């Protein structure tokens, strides 16, 4: 978490805010903080503040976005169009809606716009979903073109901005109906999901609701956590631009260094049109679990999309759909404070770790 966001969270807990639906003073203060947080999110995504809803996680927001449009448009049909590399929460919600059309991507992860258009225009399409940027490989989707196709076909579009919110400017996207995000991806609390539903969109709550958040997400909001999420997003708006530029350069350095110093490595994703902070690569003949643990011992906390090291026995659907190697996978997300010295140390420690693991299994 960003230090300012953590401090804001602690301060808000101390302040003794109450239930924002109540008229007493602690309730009014909480309601005021909630309104301010909505304004911060609304400004970042190009929406009105009363269109902003807070959920419990990115998965909740994506489930609500997909299921709510499927319910609101059930007379049109059950089909949900996504890309093949959307987040698993989008894919599972699309499958649950009854008819899921995943559209293929190229080797760098860009959706095929001709196939996208054909899928969106098919009769019975309730909604479509596209990511601003992929959460594993960082590739930016051609979201403006994809959005235009949806507008022409009069199909509501969900924009999953989880990996992009705070990291890049994407205010230019117009024509979306629902947008999702997650504070955990921009240095806020992991317990805050973001669901923005434009006025007039045929979205219906696909679960029982109550009086909170206009009947769009039930239960009392965790206002201190939401306040901290807004503070984190404000940090990115005010001074994130230079951080993003630095991270973009650091990932360039990492990409080049790894490709140069580790033989037989498959570096995934678009090297240029991407979010600044993400990199995924796979190392041939190496298992992801061993690699992740060895890097952890060397002081680097990395994720992996390999089957043996993820929480699933299946490899990353993102890497498989892109035709990238799925074993020996390492996923790096830079933090606000990652330095060039840390990147250089990573480039130095990786080659001998890989060489040792390959020697153990008898290949080189």
């Amino acid at each position, binding site marked *: 978490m960003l230090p300012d966001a953590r401090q804001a969270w602690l301060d808000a807990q101390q302040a003794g805010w109450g239930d924002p639906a109540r008229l007493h003073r602690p309730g009014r203060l909480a309601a005021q903080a909630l309104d301010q947080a909505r304004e911060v999110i609304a400004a970042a995504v190009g929406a009105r503040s009363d269109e902003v809803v807070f959920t419990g996680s990115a998965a909740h927001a994506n489930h609500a976005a997909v299921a709510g449009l499927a319910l609101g448009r059930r007379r049109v049909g059950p089909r949900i169009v996504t890309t093949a590399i959307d987040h698993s929460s989008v894919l599972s919600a699309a499958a649950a809606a009854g008819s899921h059309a995943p559209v293929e991507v190229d080797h760098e992860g860009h959706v095929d716009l001709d196939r996208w258009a054909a899928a969106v225009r098919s009769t019975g399409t309730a909604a479509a979903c596209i990511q601003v940027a992929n959460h594993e490989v960082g590739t930016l989707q051609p979201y403006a073109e994809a959005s235009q196709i949806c507008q022409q076909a009069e199909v509501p579009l969900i924009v999953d901005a989880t990996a992009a919110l705070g990291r890049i400017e994407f205010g230019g996207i117009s024509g979306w109906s629902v947008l999702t995000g997650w504070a955990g991806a921009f240095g806020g609390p992991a317990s805050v999901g973001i669901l923005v539903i434009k006025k007039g969109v045929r979205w219906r709550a696909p679960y029982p609701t109550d009086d909170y958040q206009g009947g769009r997400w039930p239960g009392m909001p965790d206002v201190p956590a939401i306040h901290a999420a807004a503070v984190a997003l404000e940090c990115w708006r005010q001074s994130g631009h230079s951080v993003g530029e630095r991270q973009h350069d650091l990932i360039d350095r990492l990409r080049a260094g790894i490709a140069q110093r580790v033989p*037989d490595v*498959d570096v995934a994703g678009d090297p240029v049109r991407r979010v600044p902070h993400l990199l995924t690569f*796979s190392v*041939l*003949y*190496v*298992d992801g679990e061993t690699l992740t643990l060895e890097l952890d011992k060397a002081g680097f906390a990395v994720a992996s999309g*390999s*089957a*043996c090291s993820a929480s699933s*026995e*299946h*490899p990353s659907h993102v*890497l*498989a759909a892109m*035709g*990238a*190697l*799925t*074993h*020996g996978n390492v996923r790096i997300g830079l933090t606000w404070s990652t330095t060039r010295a840390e990147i250089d140390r990573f480039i130095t420690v990786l080659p001998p770790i890989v060489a040792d693991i390959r020697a153990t*299994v*008898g*290949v080189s």
Partner: protein
Amino acid sequence: MTEDASPYNGLSLDCRGMKCPRPIIEVARHIREVQVGAVLQLLADDPAAGPDLAAWCRMRGQTLVASDPPRFLVRREL
């Protein structure tokens, strides 16, 4: 992917029950035991075998001629 007319001529690796990257390592170890232009058969039931064998062929200049899990055919090109 559909099987083409490439003959499958002899070498078969049974890697069923093995987790990736083991089946891919076995293919890499044994590919030179078939002649250039000949085909090696891999039997593997790990869910990563299909995508990883395709990626290995791309990275190593070999051709995946059939992918019908648990059966895969690789033609040695070089």
